């Protein structure tokens, strides 16, 4: 009798524990950028909710390529930039709509939330909410490259041989703006966009002899700038601020044509299995204190309402030094990239790479 009841109670408790853990404690597979899920934030989240978090670090292109390969499986939450959501969704169907009722709207800066919702809407559904934002522009060694004020100044003879930028789409867009063109206005018109890109192509080929190398990863660029082999480059604001701590001459400068603004978002992959954990993560990291921890790790500010109060003073000072009010007003925010534009840009980038 006692034996039987023991077996019964064990069975019941196994079922209970099993059932509870299936409902409440999931594994959240997070596909994100370096710095967006610092260890102490993950540990806090795991302690508070019981979910476990597996972090995979990546970048925009790889995120989309990974999700495309599995039809939107393998991850429960991803963080592509807001301009790379509508296009890939129409083309490959790799995301699922956000249930806005599960997101605590009070945690978000309303204007950013509205902008991201607008940019990530396909049909009647919203696919993304904002998380971290920042800009890319010029990172300069001001002692040696003070004359560089704009993207096209990277071609000047004064810095020849000591310049580096990426051979990727931000470079094309930045150069186009600097040449007085408006690539964003031509997004919807393939012929006009091709025309703009061919002008940029000619410019980049003309500039190639003065380029030291096209950098691939952030660490590579850091090494080049630290050693002094490169004095002027195109990079993210955080890269410049990080280097500024080691060498006061190096900092981020918003170019005359305007820094390029990006917003990294939260999206749910189409075949994600832990939506509840994903919503819990979003609502957790958008709390002002937690968002400030992420700002500390990533170096960029978040869309969290009120997190500025908790941000480190030196980071705020660097931000204000790089961005006077008119530079903020001049930030060019990336609109959603229509599907198919990558093919035009790809041809341009390949030809620049091959040019002598």
């Amino acid at each position, binding site marked *: 009798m006692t034996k039987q009841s023991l077996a019964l109670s064990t069975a019941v408790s196994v079922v209970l524990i099993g059932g509870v853990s299936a409902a409440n404690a999931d594994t959240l597979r997070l596909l994100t950028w370096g710095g967006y899920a610092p260890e102490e934030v993950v540990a806090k989240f795991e302690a508070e909710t019981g979910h476990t978090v597996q972090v995979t670090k990546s970048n925009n292109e790889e995120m989309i390529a990974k999700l495309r390969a599995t039809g939107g499986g393998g991850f429960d939450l991803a963080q592509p930039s807001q301009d790379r959501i509508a296009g890939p969704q129409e083309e490959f169907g790799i995301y699922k709509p956000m249930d806005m009722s599960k997101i605590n709207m009070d945690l978000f800066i309303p204007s950013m939330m509205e902008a991201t919702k607008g940019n990530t809407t396909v049909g009647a559904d919203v696919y993304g909410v904002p998380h971290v934002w920042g800009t890319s522009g010029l990172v300069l060694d001001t002692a040696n490259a003070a004359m560089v004020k704009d993207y096209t100044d990277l071609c000047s003879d004064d810095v020849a041989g000591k310049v580096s930028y990426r051979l990727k789409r931000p470079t094309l867009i930045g150069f186009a703006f600097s040449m007085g063109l408006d690539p964003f206005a031509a997004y919807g018109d393939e012929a006009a966009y091709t025309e703009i890109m061919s002008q940029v192509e000619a410019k980049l080929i003309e500039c190639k002899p003065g380029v030291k190398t096209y950098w691939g990863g952030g660490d590579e660029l850091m090494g080049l700038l630290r050693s002094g*082999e490169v004095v002027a480059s195109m990079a993210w604001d955080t890269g410049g601020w990080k280097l500024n701590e080691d060498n006061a001459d190096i900092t981020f400068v918003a170019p005359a044509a305007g820094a390029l603004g990006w917003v990294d978002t939260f999206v749910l992959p189409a075949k994600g299995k832990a939506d509840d954990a994903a919503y819990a993560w979003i609502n957790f990291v958008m709390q002002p204190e937690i968002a400030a921890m992420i700002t500390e790790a990533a170096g960029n500010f978040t869309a969290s309402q009120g997190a500025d109060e908790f941000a480190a003073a030196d980071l705020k000072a660097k931000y204000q030094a790089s961005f006077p009010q008119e530079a903020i007003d001049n930030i060019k925010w990336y609109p959603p990239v229509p599907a198919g534009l990558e093919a035009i840009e790809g041809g341009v980038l390949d030809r620049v790479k091959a040019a002598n």
Partner: protein
Amino acid sequence: MRTEAKLGFALLLTPLLLWLSLLIFVPHVDIFLVSLRERIGVGQYQTSLANYLTFFQEPLYLWTFLRTAVMSSVATLITLVIAFPVSYYIAKMIKGRAQSALFLLCLVPFWVSELVRTFGWMILLRETGVFSNVLQYLGLVDGPVEMLYNDGAIMVGLVYTSMLFMVVPLVTTLESLPDEIIEAGYDLGGNGISVLREIIIPHAMPGIVSGCIVVFMLSLGNYLTPTMLGGKESLWFTELIYSQFIVRFNWELGAAFGFMLLILSSAIVWGMLKLTGQSLEKTMG
């Protein structure tokens, strides 16, 4: 008894068949099918040869492939020229522990990953790197010299990366050459050059051919070394494939490139075998 033998044979064959079909045959069929799709609109595709046409119509792609093939051939030749004396020394000139020790020394660099080895070369070659500083210290140059980011740097990296794959087959074949035959060559009036030409090279031919094939294919398919050491001049065919798949989301063109690489590199190896009068059976046997 016979059925048991058959069963054993089938069981032994299964892993090989699974390997070949699941990991090699099926993915290739899939890639081939992808390469035949042409994007005609948002999420719409049709079957066509457009991607292959792109490869032949855009001179850039064909040019990149040619460049990759020529650079890989040169790398193979340089590797052979450097590895042959090294292998001959290891196989014939020394014996015992010194032989094992030297062979081991050739292996040691391969205990770290290719990435680390390539970083090592970057530290040596860069403008603020070791070579540049030593040259300045010796007073041979006035200012810093940049040795990275050019074809020469790529070549150094490729040869260094593939050295082992040339040394191993060469040492194996050279060791099987009896010393008496070389001595007999000298006894019959041969000199160093004629013995090398008439006896050693013909005997080592299978090792040379298999080493060359491996090194050529490794160089052709290398991604890391050309990208990291070549910098802005690092146009390499595998890089084109990577960027089509990952950066441009253009899997169709990337798949077509992958297939062209398979076909063209096989054709080059076949052509080289024919040209030198070798055959794969002789090399393997």
